[in-house]
Structure formats: structure tokens, C-alpha cells
């Protein structure tokens, strides 16, 4: 088997001394430089929520709280500070996807591709052709909605949702609408949305019928507990499993699942009727219909009223013994059951940890989880997601955890799809007609796309450990689960294609289409190309929050300097973007 000599990067770390000599670095001049990022200068005496005190600090915050820092956002954040920025974002008009689909549907069929288009317009913050001249600015809400969509999972890969673009769009809108609300309301929105009804088969769930050997469907009952609220194991206030005799303690058992399954009987699409109840699930529903986007409705004839239902048991549980006595209506019982879940002590740390993982770092300290969970558990305002999000992003560990004892393991692998989104955040992309045709299914190139998970367990699990050093150190690395050999090649190739072919002025055939998003290098980065160090510094700030190591900077500047500054600077810009976006240092957000 022949291995090409260019793959010199395969050499082992230097601890195997004998091999080090064989691993001649291609760029020797870079060897003496530090491989650690430059420190971000900061004030030593302020609270974490004060500031930011530098462009780099502002960029770093924005790269956690939004889909990517821009020069304008950095400048604004430095002017107003974190607190005002949050207040502005909380007050910013929410962007929703369904209105875009309504508009697009006036002229053509609407499928999941159009939903992705709406997602991009809202998340990248693009000009909205459905509502000109609006440009979407609710970055924090959209970023949190995306995080929520990876915890509360619905997927257009489900056969019942594949052709239901309004169902998935309105699902995402429901997440966005609740992103700054209360967890309890979010949980109800999640439970009753028809997309979830279809995805986890609560729609049409019915009371037991012993003659027909029919039992209530346990699907939603199980996953709302395991994935959307409390998880499988009892947690302490810091999110660590409670151990008894060295073993974790289960939060519920099969009887509990059956209890909730009985609660969740009697719900169907809002255009259903009692007479048609068993058939409504299989009936055709037009994608744009209210049935596919508005909450399911109760049908008492199919709701179980005869059994006492075992719900969750925990200290000070409101229902005696966690037992819901029979007789309630479908809605009354749903309310009681969701109250029973939302008050469980696991919810705070369970949700806190996952939000931290989605936005900040894969391995938060228990104390960090505990601080955010404590905010969640506020007695007067339990589950106030505004406060929780602020607590996640303004925690001392969010702001300063990258330095200090955990400096070599803080942060997370960037989600591959968000690399593309961040590229577009900084390159002022636009299409001629305001529409966006991706040409490919992003999950083929990025291993993910909004609401396109292969299962309810998301693209990756919170506890995934990349084999090797990460696993040996007992760390978790969720996003590594999709960093497969296939995706590690496919993602750079799609980025390559877009960077080198889809820009304003490109002569590439596809780039001539009016619905192609073309990056405007001339208006953004080309002017810096004459000075490679300046170009690299700009990308360092925007993409890497000023954390690029001297080593990496030197590799890039050396490479760009050797490249003729042709095409108005575009050549250097393209290579710089490609090399940064596919580098290990950028790929780990710290």
C-alpha cells in the first residue's frame, strides 16, 4: 500500500522520540513559535458580566451567543456592554419561518428545502425577500432555537414529516417563540405540536382496549422523560449522577412510562373528530393546513379516565406518591403531568448542562452547571429561559474558562454546519433574487442540517467520547460523533466548493443562477489581502476570537505571502478562508 509523501501530518507526537526526527515539519520557520493561543487581555477585577474589554473578548462572546461575530456587532457590543446587548436581543422582533413558506408557496411548491432557506435567512441574518426590506437581527434567539432543536428533536427524515415543510418550520418557530420564555411553556409547546405528535406518535394515541389488545403508545412518554426533561439518572444540583452503592439511581421505571403513556391519550390533529379519531393519523393533511402547524386537540372519548397513573416521584412532589388519580380530562391530566415533570429537581441541571454544551463547552465544571441550574431553579421564576441563557453565557467559566487549568480541554468541536453559517456571517453573501438554493443536501456534506437528525437522539449525544485521548481523559465530545472519516472529507470539500466558486463576480456556471448565495469578498476581505498579516488578523478576530496561535498565524502568513496577490486580493482571501475553516485550531471553539 502506497501512502503519498505529502501526508507528512501523520507523524506521531514527539513523545515517541525516535519518530520525531522523521517528521520534518514542512514549514520549519514556524517551529519555534507557540502553539497556544495568544491570551486575550482582560481586566482582572471586574465581574464576568462586565465588559467586553476588547474586540477579541466581544468576538468570543458573540461567537458563542450568535451564529458568528461581525465587525459591526463587535463594535456595537463594545459600546453597549453585555447587559444592554441582552436586553436588546430579548426585545428584538422574533424571526419565524412559516411566513416565508406562506410567501414562497404563492408561486411554487414548498418542501424542506424552502424551510432550510428560511432557516438560513433568519440565522445568517440575510435580506428577507418575503418581507423586504427586513434583515433579521434576532441572533441570540435564533442561536438558542438551534440549540433547543438539538435537545428537543424532530426530524424531517421521518416519513410522516418529509413532505410537511410547514410542520417542521412551525416546530422551529415554536422553539424560537419559547426560547426566551418559561421551560414549562416550552415543554407544552413541544408536547402538543403536531410535528412532535407525528414524530413520536402521540397523535392518535388512545386509551386501552383490552378486546383489541390495544395499549397506550409509550413512545412520547418515554422520550419526554429521557431526552426533554430529566434523563435516566437522578442528578445532584450540579448535574452529577447520584450514586447509591456506587450505582446510579434511575429516575423512573416502566410503570412510570405507562403512567405517562396513559396521560398522553386522546390527542389528535386539530381537524379531527371523535368519530374519525382512529383514522385521522393516516389521513392526508395539506402541508400548509392548520392541522400540521397548530397544537393538537383533545378528544375525550379516546382519553383514558379509568386508571390511576404513576407519574414521577421526587422530594416534595405535588401529587401524593406521584400518583395521578383517575377522572381528569385529557387537558387536565396533561397539565398535571407536565407540571409533575417540570418540577422535578433534575430538569435544571439536565437542561443547563446541555445548553452549556451547545453554546460554550463540552465539559463544563459541575460548579458551572450548578450555577446555571440554580438560576433555572429560581423559586419565583422557575425555568425562566432568559435568565438561564444569560447565566450560561455570562458565567465566569463561559467568559474566562478558556484560560487557566483547563486551557487544553476547554471548549467544543464546532458543528460542521455552523462553519458554513459562520463563513456566510462574515462575507456579506447575497443572491440576485434573494432566494437560496443550496444545490446539495447539507446532511450529506456536513453530517447535519437543521431538523434533519437521523433519530430523536440528535446527530450526536451529550455523552459521546471520541476514542483515544479524549476518552482516556474521561472527557466527552458530543460533536465528534459526526466527525466520521466520510464527513471529515466531505465538509472541507463543500467549503472548498463554496469558497472558491460562489462569490460575487464568479464565472462558474452554477454561480450564474439567481438563487445562488454569493459571497462578497470585494466588500469584506479583499481590501486586506495586500497585507497578509492584516488579513489573517481579521480572520483571527472574526472566526477565532483572537485565539489563533503564533504558530498558525505564521503558517498562514507565510503561505499567503508566497501567493501572488491576484484578482483584487481574492486568491489570498479564498486560501486564507479555506485554511482557517479547516484547521484544528479553528475547529475547536474555545
Amino acid at each position, binding site marked *: *500500500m502506497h501512502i503519498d509523501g*505529502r*501526508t507528512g*501530518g*501523520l*507523524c506521531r*507526537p*514527539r513523545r515517541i522520540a525516535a519518530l520525531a526526527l522523521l517528521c520534518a*515539519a*514542512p514549514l520549519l520557520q514556524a517551529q519555534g513559535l507557540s*502553539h497556544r493561543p495568544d491570551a486575550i487581555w482582560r481586566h482582572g477585577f471586574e465581574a464576568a458580566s462586565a465588559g467586553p474589554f476588547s474586540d477579541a473578548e466581544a468576538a468570543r462572546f458573540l461567537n458563542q451567543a450568535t451564529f458568528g461575530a461581525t465587525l459591526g456587532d463587535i463594535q456595537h457590543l463594545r459600546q453597549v456592554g453585555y447587559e444592554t446587548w441582552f436586553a436588546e436581543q430579548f426585545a428584538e422582533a422574533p424571526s419565524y419561518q412559516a411566513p416565508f413558506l406562506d410567501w414562497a408557496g404563492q408561486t411554487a411548491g414548498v418542501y424542506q428545502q424552502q424551510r432550510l432557506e428560511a432557516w438560513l435567512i433568519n440565522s445568517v441574518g440575510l435580506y428577507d425577500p418575503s418581507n423586504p426590506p427586513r434583515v433579521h437581527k434576532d441572533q441570540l434567539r435564533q442561536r438558542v432555537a438551534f440549540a433547543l432543536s438539538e435537545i428537543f428533536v424532530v426530524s424531517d427524515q421521518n416519513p*410522516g414529516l418529509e413532505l410537511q415543510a410547514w410542520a417542521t418550520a412551525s416546530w422551529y418557530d415554536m422553539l424560537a417563540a419559547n426560547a426566551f420564555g418559561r421551560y414549562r411553556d416550552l415543554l407544552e409547546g413541544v408536547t402538543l405540536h403536531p410535528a412532535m405528535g*407525528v414524530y*413520536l406518535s402521540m397523535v392518535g394515541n*388512545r386509551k386501552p382496549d383490552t378486546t*383489541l*389488545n*390495544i*395499549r*397506550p*403508545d*409509550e*413512545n412520547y412518554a*418515554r422520550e419526554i422523560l*429521557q431526552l426533554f426533561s430529566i434523563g435516566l439518572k437522578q442528578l445532584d444540583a450540579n448535574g452529577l449522577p447520584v450514586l447509591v452503592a456506587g450505582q446510579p439511581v*434511575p429516575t423512573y421505571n*416502566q410503570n412510570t*412510562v*405507562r403512567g405517562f403513556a396513559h396521560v398522553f391519550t386522546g390527542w389528535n390533529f386539530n381537524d379531527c373528530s371523535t368519530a374519525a379519531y382512529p383514522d385521522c393519523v393516516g389521513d392526508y393533511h395539506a402541508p400548509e393546513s392548520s392541522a400540521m402547524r397548530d397544537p393538537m386537540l383533545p378528544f375525550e372519548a379516546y382519553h383514558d379516565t379509568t386508571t390511576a397513573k404513576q407519574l414521577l416521584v421526587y422530594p416534595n412532589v405535588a401529587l401524593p406518591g406521584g400518583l395521578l388519580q383517575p377522572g381528569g380530562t385529557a387537558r387536565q391530566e396533561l397539565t398535571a403531568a407536565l407540571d409533575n415533570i417540570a418540577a422535578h429537581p433534575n430538569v435544571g441541571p439536565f437542561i443547563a448542562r446541555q445548553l452549556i454544551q451547545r453554546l460554550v463547552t*463540552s465539559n463544563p465544571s459541575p460548579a458551572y452547571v450548578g450555577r446555571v441550574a440554580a438560576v433555572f431553579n429560581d423559586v419565583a421564576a422557575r425555568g425562566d429561559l432568559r435568565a438561564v441563557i444569560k447565566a450560561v453565557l455570562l458565567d465566569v467559566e463561559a467568559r474566562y474558562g478558556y484560560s487557566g487549568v483547563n486551557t487544553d480541554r476547554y471548549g*467544543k468541536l464546532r458543528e460542521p454546519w455552523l462553519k458554513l453559517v459562520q463563513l456566510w456571517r462574515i462575507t456579506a453573501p447575497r443572491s440576485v433574487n434573494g432566494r437560496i438554493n443550496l444545490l446539495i443536501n447539507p446532511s450529506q456534506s456536513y*453530517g447535519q442540517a437543521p431538523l434533519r437528525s*437521523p*433519530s*430523536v437522539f440528535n446527530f450526536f449525544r451529550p455523552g459521546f467520547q471520541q476514542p483515544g*485521548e*479524549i476518552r482516556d*481523559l474521561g472527557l466527552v*465530545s458530543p460533536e*465528534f460523533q459526526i466527525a*466520521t*472519516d*466520510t464527513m*471529515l*472529507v*466531505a465538509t*472541507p*470539500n463543500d467549503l*472548498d466548493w463554496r469558497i472558491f466558486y460562489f462569490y460575487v463576480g464568479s464565472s462558474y456556471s452554477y454561480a450564474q443562477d439567481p438563487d445562488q448565495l454569493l459571497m462578497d469578498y470585494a466588500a469584506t476581505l479583499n481590501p486586506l489581502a495586500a497585507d497578509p498579516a492584516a488579513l489573517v488578523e481579521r480572520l483571527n478576530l472574526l472566526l477565532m476570537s483572537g485565539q489563533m496561535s503564533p*504558530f*498558525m498565524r505564521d503558517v*498562514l502568513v*507565510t*503561505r499567503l505571502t*508566497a*501567493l501572488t496577490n491576484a484578482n483584487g486580493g481574492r486568491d489570498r482571501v479564498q486560501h486564507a478562508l479555506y485554511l482557517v475553516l479547516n484547521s*484544528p*485550531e479553528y475547529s*475547536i471553539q*474555545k
Partner: protein
Amino acid sequence: MNTTRRTFLRRSLQAALGGAGVSALGQLGLLNAAMAAGSGTTFPDYKALVCVFLHGGNDSFNTIVPRDASHYGVYAASRGALAVPQNQLIALDPLADGLPGDGAQYGLHPQMQDLATLFGDGHAGILANVGTLIHPITQQQYQQGTVSVPAQLFSHEDQANLWQTSRPDDGNASGWGGRIADLMHAGNPNQAQSMLVSLEGQALFQRGDVVNQYVIGSYGVEQVSYLNAWGNDAGAAAFNALLQLGSQAHVFERSYARAMNSAVANYQAIGAALNAAGDVTTAFPNSRLGRQLHMVARLIKARNQLDLRRQIFFVSLGGFDTHGSQSDVHPGLLGDLSQSLKAFYDATAELSLANQVTAFTASDFGRTVSINGDGTDHGWGGHHLIVGGAVRGRRFYGRMPSLAQNGNSDDAGYGQLIPTVSVDQYAATLARWFGLAESGIDDILPNLGHFASRDLGFLTAT
């Protein structure tokens, strides 16, 4: 986490590294080369195991269905609207020493004609009521809680994981495919190429403590275009400089660089091998499972170019979590499974390797015998299929459970059937055929001794 075993494996590795030859094949290659340095023997023959994982929990009670009047009556009463019509079942005619044991006659779902052919030709066997177990357990013991059972029964993620680790007593265990490879990979002539290959993403089944799995797509390997672009040698050099190990100060950055470097090394080697070996001529269904098994067949055909004599593959098909609309969804999945397994068997026959390749199914769990209206819920035990020339086919193995809704001593409750064969026993039988020594089988399956039989007999001795 089995710290002792991992420590042992790593220590062996460190010791061997001292004398390892120089290799430019990356971390994986070095690890493997190091492990081989001490052993010296390679397998004389070729064998492959193919795990076909049915994600979501296959309804095996609608896959293999009783067809004689009395047993069908019991089934139909339990299954109501979801019962497969009796006159559509494809009759199975097992050999006299492979009868199901419950006196019933069975048939396959009407979408599974190809599988029925494999069964009739003696190339497929049926293993009854397999599931995750720590000990054998009766209904009474289950209800009284006197015998321990795996944690989080009926939960997808947990049970799918336990099927793949066969370590219900260890939540951090590696996969049993990976553990087999840890012990056997040194017998492969080429240590640079992983003997563990997964289609459709990383699989826990294929996670070893030493050997890393290679994940390939159904359509083959793609190259990093930037590294191969004309006139971009300097760009490629910069790309590689940033990826060179030793250039990262952060644990995750190093891990990313390792994964990336490994991906490049793998596609170069596998791409070259696939090109040199060429495709099989057997036609595969253009389905999700068909495409995966087609790629497996291509990789088996390339075994000489890859210089591998033991390979373990993991393919998967999703959508089996049929809580709703089961009658619409399940038949198509079974059809894909049946046609794809038949095409795969035919491809191994084309390669004259039918007796050396064994495919077997696995799934999160069986489903409930009871229904929820238009679907079924999460169960426990379920039937599984083993396909290949080495299978003592046209036989049932194990005991087919009762499908009665009342008074059923196989029922853990709500029609979730208590398994009578453990995943351990299933895995041990496959691992023994694959060539793993008895001591190795005990090492990878420490709970195997809890069960009466170490070999279920569905594979021929070699």
C-alpha cells in the same frame, strides 16, 4: 470502564512501540503495527462478520409469524389490526433437527420471499427470542425482582447500546465487535488498515479499546479536493502543517487532527484498493441497506488489496420504531432487509466466499406483542436472522415464545417478551466461528458463564 483490560492493552502497546518499525501510516497504523510486533502469526484463511443493525427495534413477531391454525389464532388475537394475513405468509419448511420446538409452523412476512429462499436453501437460520440479559430469568423472577436485569429495559438508546456492548453490567463498555478486533487484529497481515468498518457513521459495536473503526459511506471514498488541486502544493503543505501532530496545544485539536489525518490515510488506502479490486457483478437493491451491503461486498472483494484476513462490518437500517403506521412502514423495511441480504449472500457466492462470510441481524429490542392501535411499543426479546454459507440453515434455534396476550409465562408485562437467549450467547457463537479462542471469548463476554450454552450451534464448526 474496564480499566484493567485497557491498561493491559495499552501497556502491551507501549512495550511493543519501543521496537516498532517506522511507519508513515498514522496513529492507527502504528498502534496496529505495534500490536503485531509481538505476535507473529497471521490467519491463513479469510472470514468476515457483518452486523446488520435494525435501528428502532424490529417487530420480529410480524417478521416470523405462526401460520398453523391454532398458533395463528393466538397471534391474530394479540395483534388485532396489525396481524399479517395468514394466507399471505410465506411458509418455512425447517429440517427435522431444526424445528421451532413449540409445535407451531411458521411463515415469513410476505415481503420476504428472498429470505425464504435463503432459508429453504439452507443459508439462513432463525434464532428465537434473543435479548439483553445478565442472567437467565423467569417471569416469576422478573416480577419478584430476584434476578438482576439490564438497566433501562425498553429504552432505545440503552438497549441498542447494550446489544452492541453485550455488557449490561458496564455502561462504559466498548462494543463486542471492537473487542473481538482488539484480540484478533494482530492476525491480519496489514496492520495499517482497520479491520472494523462501519457504514453510516460510528457504531458502538465497532468501538474497540485499541482498534479504531473506519467509517465509510455507501458511495465510496471521497478525497480532500484541496490536497489534490492542481498547482496547490504550497496550499496543501500549509493545510498539512496545521494538521501535523505536535502542532496542537489542545486535547480536542489533537483529536481533530488525528481524525482528519486518519481519514486521509484511510481514503488513500481504501480508494486505491477498491479501484484495483473492481466491483462485484451481483446486482444490489438501490435501497439504503442494499447500498451499504454493496459497499461491504466491494470491500470484501478488495480484501487482498487491503491485505486483511479478518474483517468486521457494521451496516444499519433505521425506521423500525413502528409505534405508529406500522402497516405502512414495516413491510417496506422487511422487503429491503430480505432483498439486500439475498443480494449480499449472492455476492459472497460470486466471490467464492459464501462459507467465509456470516451476516447476522441485531436490533434495539423486540416489540410488544400487544399493540397501541396502529403500531407496537418497545419490547425486550426478539427473533434474529443469521445468513451465510457457514450457517446451519433451514433451522430454528432456541425456543419460540408464546404470543398469547393472557396467561403467557414468557410475558414480562404488556406483551414485552422475556428473552430466552442472551446477546452474550449469540455473540459467543459468532466469535468462535470467527476464530476467537475460548479464553478470548471469556475475555470479551464476561457474563457468558451465566448461561447454559456457550455455542448455540447455528454455525458449522471450522
